[in-house]
């Protein structure tokens, strides 16, 4: 209230109890959305399958996932000062790549947000193979939209005798993607002789859907000086 000599704060005391609660709920909603840099609540049209979600979270936060699927959130400490975010992005399942080696991830990003990627990892599942017993090498490329150019970003050697998850560090590739301001990240997987073993967004195996994990923080600009 702007009363002379009074406190410049929000007041709801003049309202009826029901109205007051509605005002407070609306304030809470706006507060959460603004802190998450969202203009409105995200519209979840195609929920990620629960098995996919739990699997990704289990890999990301081993030991901190409760049986009901909720996450035991850590107590934020000094890391808070870095304004860090962790992000899990699932590969698009409707990405129609004729070579069947492509992965696409969607990101929404405010135009003025300046992200520093601290670490980013791609998780890919390779099925077991009875015929391939030796080590294979899988390579990962960053594809360019609208051209055939691609940039090598990561590779890994492993045995595919048993089906398992494999991680590829793609920090620099994801940083380059954010720096360009793109919204669609396209990756290509190349595994000679073992191409058909990689699970690339198959809906028949939701718990093995590829996903990308990124730890990012907002870069501070040089003009962030506050007067106190």
């Amino acid at each position, binding site marked *: 209230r702007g009363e002379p000599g009074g406190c410049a704060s929000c007041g709801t005391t003049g309202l009826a109890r029901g109205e007051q609660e509605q005002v407070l709920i609306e304030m809470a909603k706006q507060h959460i959305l603004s802190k*998450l840099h969202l203009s409105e*609540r*995200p519209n979840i049209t195609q929920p*990620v399958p629960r098995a996919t979600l739990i699997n990704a979270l289990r890999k990301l936060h081993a030991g901190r996932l409760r049986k009901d699927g909720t996450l035991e959130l850590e107590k934020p400490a000094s890391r808070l000062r870095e304004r860090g975010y962790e*992000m*899990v992005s*699932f590969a698009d399942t409707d990405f129609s790549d004729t070579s069947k080696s492509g992965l696409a*991830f969607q990101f929404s990003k405010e135009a003025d947000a300046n992200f520093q990627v601290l670490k980013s990892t791609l998780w890919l599942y390779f099925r077991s193979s009875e015929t391939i017993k030796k080590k294979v090498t899988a390579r990962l490329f960053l594809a360019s939209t609208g051209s055939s150019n691609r940039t090598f970003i990561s590779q890994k050697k492993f045995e595919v005798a048993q089906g398992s998850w494999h991680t590829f560090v793609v920090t620099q590739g994801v940083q380059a993607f954010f720096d360009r301001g793109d919204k669609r990240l396209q990756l290509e997987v190349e595994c000679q002789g073992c191409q058909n073993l990689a699970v690339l967004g198959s809906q028949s195996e939701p718990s093995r859907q590829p996903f990308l994990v990124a730890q990012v923080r907002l870069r501070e600009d040089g003009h962030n000086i506050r007067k106190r």
Partner: protein
Amino acid sequence: SLDCDANGSVCCKNDFYIKFRDIDWQDWIIAPEGYHMNYCMGQCPQHLAGSPGIASSFHAAVLNQLKANGIHTAVSSCCVPTQRRPLSMLYFDSTQNIVKTDIPDMIVEACGCT
């Protein structure tokens, strides 16, 4: 810091909890299940000004001098949060990616008079 009761009019912390299921936000917020949006309310009479938030500061010393000399008109005291804690959130963003972030100063833990 006081917790508000039905009769109190002195600066206090009012607990207010919103369950995301009740506002249909559970589809995009994975964790936590709700938000403790506590807030401060109540009057700050002169004898409470400067406590407990800034009790040992230079400003408090100045205010005490003013009060001791009966100069009340220059001082107005407000009931404000004096202690807050962060909130960790796990949610789907607009492109359905899962994001985890720690938001500082999100939950009011204590209130006091400036």
